[in-house]
């Protein structure tokens, strides 16, 4: 059910962006599975970086579209849930950014924390929290 939108509402993409987001995620995952797992293609370094960029960015864009599109039901409760989920994602990413170098140091691994991984984790946490809170209401 759609309620009347007012100026204070957060701007969201239309509902069909969930479908576009899902398609983008498929477009990111399917080529990765085909080229890496099935065909086992050997890449030159620039091609590998380009493919990695394509896969990550398409996946992140897909998650963003899903996360930021309108649900069938958008009212003040979903607004509150979205806000809680954003707060959760924001706080947890701070701990993640602080703790990752420490864990890497303790485990003697060098796993670079990139902007992509931060955005990816925030989106996954936001979506997870959002749907977990909506469940059973």
């Amino acid at each position, binding site marked *: *059910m759609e*309620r*009347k939108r007012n100026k204070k509402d957060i701007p969201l993409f239309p509902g069909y962006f969930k479908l576009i987001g899902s398609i983008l995620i498929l477009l990111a995952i399917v080529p990765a599975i085909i080229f890496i797992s099935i065909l086992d293609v050997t890449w030159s370094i620039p091609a590998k970086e380009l493919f990695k960029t394509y896969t990550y960015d398409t996946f992140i864009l897909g998650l963003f579209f899903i996360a930021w599109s309108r649900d069938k*039901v958008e*009212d*003040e*409760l*979903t607004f*509150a849930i979205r806000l809680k989920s954003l707060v959760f994602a924001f706080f947890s990413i701070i701990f993640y950014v602080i703790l990752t170098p420490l864990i890497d140091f303790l485990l003697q691994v060098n796993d670079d924390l990139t902007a992509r991984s931060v955005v990816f984790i925030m989106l996954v946490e936001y979506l997870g929290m959002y749907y977990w809170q*909506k469940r059973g*209401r």
Partner: protein
Amino acid sequence: MKNTIKVERAKLNLTQQDLADKVGVSRQTINSIEAERYVPSTVLAIKISEVFKTTVNEIFKLEDE
């Protein structure tokens, strides 16, 4: 915050969906308010009280009152 929405609904023989339609929110929102998992905005509280033709204070009460 406690509320008497369930009782008021029963008096008027309204379902959660009926009330949700009247105030322009989802059934899940009404369910969450009744279960005291969610505190409605002032605007929604007023709309709900208007449906039951009473005041907000009659429907919503603070826990320590």
